[in-house]
């Protein structure tokens, strides 16, 4: 259920996320030392254009990547195809983007 365009979208978002993922893991290893608190997380991220761009890009890329990946798995596992499959994959992508966008706004927006 992948044509060239979906394949390219899948691979390009993957390439974008490769360094972001490694960065994310590095931040996690650093951040969890000594436990996590809301104040600590927000102190690092709130009002930061860098973290907004970092996680904003991450959310956009992962929404596209996960939607296409799940589309393939749903087709291969349940045999769904056509308009139903397209609608479902778009919904997955949009829901992820909306939820992810809200999380990014909550963590990096406002404050300062």
């Amino acid at each position, binding site marked *: *259920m*992948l*044509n*060239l365009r*979906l*394949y*390219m979208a899948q691979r390009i978002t993957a390439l974008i996320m490769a360094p972001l993922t490694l960065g994310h893991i590095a931040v996690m290893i650093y951040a969890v030392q000594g436990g996590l608190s809301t104040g600590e997380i927000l102190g690092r991220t709130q009002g930061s254009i860098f973290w907004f761009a970092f996680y904003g890009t991450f959310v956009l890329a992962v929404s596209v990547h996960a939607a296409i990946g799940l589309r*393939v798995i749903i*087709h291969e596992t349940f045999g769904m195809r056509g308009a139903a499959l397209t609608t479902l994959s778009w919904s997955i992508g949009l829901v992820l983007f909306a939820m992810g966008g809200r999380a990014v706004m909550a963590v990096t927006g406002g404050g300062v």
Partner: protein
Amino acid sequence: MDGQSQTMDVSVWRGGEDGDYQTYQVPAYESQTILDVVSWIQQYEDPTLTYRFACRVGMCGSCAMMVNGEPRWTCRTHVRKVLTDGAIKVGPLRNLPVIKDLAADMDPFFDKWVAAGGVHTPSASRNEPIAPVDPDGDDRVTASAGIECINCSVCYAACDTVAGNDDYLGPAALQRAWTLYNDTKHDNRAGILDAVSGTGGCHNCHSMGSCTFYCPNELDPMAAIAGLKRETARSFFRNRKG
């Protein structure tokens, strides 16, 4: 192994899609292939058993079946190699419709071969001089790597992507497309990239490598499909630029 007096239990698929396995007692010999065993059943137990074979020496690609759950060319599969607890299970090739008993319907397999752009389009007629081909040239070496395919459909039966996606062209057809793409005497190379870029095209491959793992001729369809992905991706960026 066993002497001639001993027998083994051979379960063979009988009937169409909703058939079942039936077990036969077949004499065990020192040296015999799965095809020998199937032929013995057909000749001495049940002449109505349907199966396919032609050359018996691993050249024609017509005798592939599922043996103990794995796709194999039966004429070159020694019983001793696959016998488990004195028993063998032989079924029709996976991922293809069953016609009867051990004969699978090969139509989808060959239709996809054509759909992937596998028909050669000559770039010159017989009236023109023969263009020399350097056997050591990069293109030719790449093409040659896949030309020993005998169309046995073992890779097609082994592939889980084919199992989950009816439209997927499958390893054999895509490898054929890749050899033609690298054939300097093929006149429609761009057409191949189009043919393998659709809904059922090379981009559906998950590189799980069962094709390469099971290919009886030790070809590498997975690498061929990766080549198609590389060239289609390259053409994608080229087209973007205009």
